[in-house]
């Protein structure tokens, strides 16, 4: 392998006085100074959160206000830090959402355990649990850091989907039930 000798040029007199370099440096810092600052003043200004951000896990509803979660507990089983605890439950007959799938009686995500891995979202067959854009979870006690069902739906909001699976399920279930009578 050929050896290439890099010639190291001795410094010129001007370079050895440092002065031209210092002047150039002063210009660099001056240019930086007149540039607008890049600081984001956090509590007042919030960063723009990208669409695929994995923030606090939340539960979503469909456009008709029905909860999408059917308490299959797949997320609870897949959750690596065991942050999710679901109490499954039936829907009462007189509920507006009767004749559709089941729904969780209670759904708790312990945000002190959650590692924001997103496996719950990935495993959910109903697209009911989503890691959305909320990045700042604070609380004054351990209990406050456990998101219950109400909190999760409040954070999650509605998922705009035009599939209306629940409506079809309900119609189907009621048609079949009517056929029996």
């Amino acid at each position, binding site marked *: 392998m050929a050896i290439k000798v890099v010639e190291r040029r001795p410094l010129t007199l001007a370079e050895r006085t440092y002065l031209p370099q210092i002047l150039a440096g*002063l210009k660099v*810092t001056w240019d*930086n*100074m007149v540039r607008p*600052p890049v600081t984001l003043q956090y509590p007042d200004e919030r960063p723009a959160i990208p669409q695929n951000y994995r923030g606090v896990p939340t539960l979503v509803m469909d456009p008709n206000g029905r909860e999408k979660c059917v308490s299959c507990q797949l997320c609870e089983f897949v959750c690596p830090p065991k942050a999710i605890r679901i109490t499954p439950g039936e829907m009462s007959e007189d509920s507006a959402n009767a004749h559709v799938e089941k729904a969780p009686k209670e759904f708790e995500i312990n945000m002190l355990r959650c590692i924001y891995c997103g496996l719950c979202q990935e495993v959910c067959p109903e697209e009911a649990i989503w890691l959305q854009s909320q990045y700042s979870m604070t609380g004054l006690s351990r209990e406050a850091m456990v998101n219950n069902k109400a909190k999760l739906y409040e954070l999650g909001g509605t998922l705009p989907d035009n599939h209306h699976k629940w409506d079809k399920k309900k119609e189907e279930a009621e048609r079949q039930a009517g056929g029996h009578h």
Partner: protein
Amino acid sequence: MENILHDLLLSPAWHFTAARGVTLILIVMTIAGYSVLLERKASAWIQGRIGPNRTMHPLIGWIPFLGTFLQKGGFIQPAADGGKFLFKEDALPGHVRKAYYVLAPIVALAPALAVLVMLPFGEFFHEGKRYAVSLTQGADVGVLLMFAVSSLGVYGIALAGWSANSKFPFLGAVRGAAQLISYELAMGLSVLTVFLATSAPGVDQGLSLVAMVDAQKGAWNLLTQPVAALVFLICVFAETNRHPFDMPESETDLVGGFHTEYGAFKFGIFFVAEYSHMVIGSSLFILMFLGGWHVLPWLPTVGEGWVASLLGVASFFLKLCFFLFFFVWVRWTIPRFRYDQVMRIGWRVLLPVAVLNLLAYFAWYAFRG
């Protein structure tokens, strides 16, 4: 107006003397505080940040535009900082040499204040006679005394480093003392050429700063003696322990340098002393090379009224502000020199350059006759 100025600046009555003293302390503390603010703001701008913009006093904050302006500009920050220094626990470490440890900040600040007393920063006329705007009149002992007293500040650093009884402060103090002594020489030699230019044979006040400013009514000394100005400027940076000659502090390798073991208000006093030295160094440079209170070269302040006096003082303070900013600007531009580089620049570059410059001026004046 003239009479008030006259009384404030010249009256020997004790209450006016006291007023002058209080004024000096207030001015120095204010300048030091706002220099810290300038330092923080300018470094923030250079680094693309915003700097202190939150501190606010509830009594001022409600004023519509002024309050916002003061808050965004961080103008209350120095008061908050000073208050913090004042009310913190004044810890006295167990391993220090106590008497000297307490003495050191005083020794550091006193010479700085003493020099500021002598500093002229304008001129005014009263009943046909001209006086310098300064806190002591009749102390026109010239620049030699100022150099002598201001270099006493090194004892504060040395004493602090030694009495702290810990290795980092000691290293900082040794470095600082060596650096200050080394650069004093080149500084003095570079100033000699200004003396040569100012004091024509037969003129009686060759060492007076006022006379030096008078000699710059036309071309400023910066234009006629650029080499001396450059050497002096570099030495001012070294004498004030500012970057790139930050030897006594050397935050990255010596923790905090000579004031590592200091806290609370004693540390604050070191801070004020450093900024006072910056004010002194910049003022000397302005007086000797930048035309003092003259507004522009070939455009001295004219007239004998108090408007001209105020204009002169204002122009002096503008130059001072620029220099305080320049110190910060340089700080965020150049990294600190290594200790051996500092010594080499001082002894093997600046000193020969200053000597050669002086000899050249000697020859010039000798042959010109």
